[in-house]
């Protein structure tokens, strides 16, 4: 049962990330692309993090995975905002 949950979470996370990659390619403007970049730091990483936690629990490996995903989740919007500001400056 635990393996099935892990597989489903991994499939969801990988699918979300690949959809974000496709979105970055398909979209035409920088701001639309940044929308997909931001989504790539939230949905997919959380699914993969939960998969790791289901497998490993809250041991050393699990805490390291939490730290990595938390960095992505918390720092992602800052970088996206800075990039959007830079895009706005270059479009003027």
């Amino acid at each position, binding site marked *: 049962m635990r393996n099935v949950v892990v597989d489903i979470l991994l499939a969801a996370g990988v699918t979300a990330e690949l959809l974000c990659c496709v979105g970055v390619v398909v979209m035409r403007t920088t701001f639309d692309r940044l929308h997909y970049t931001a989504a790539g730091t939230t949905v997919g990483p959380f699914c993969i993090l939960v998969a790791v936690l289901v497998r490993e629990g809250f041991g050393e490996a699990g805490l390291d995975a939490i730290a990595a995903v938390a960095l992505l989740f918390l*720092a992602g919007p800052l970088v996206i905002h800075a990039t959007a500001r*830079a895009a706005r400056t270059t479009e003027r």
Partner: protein
Amino acid sequence: MNAFEASALALLAGFVPLGWVGLRERAIDGVAALELAGALATLVLICLAEGYHRGIYFSVAVVCAAATWISGLVFARFLGRP
């Protein structure tokens, strides 16, 4: 090959379209693609660490996430200069 290794392999495929954007589109679009590539790289490292059952390798993913953050800010800063 277990599920985490297969996931890492599938995630690696995402670098191809992002590389295309980085090569063909404007520089600022390349930065957007680079930021997503950094998140992908972090997830690949997490999946590989779990897939190979090496707990110490999770630290590499933490460093990758931090480097992604810093590099994104640096690129945004320099591309946003008037």
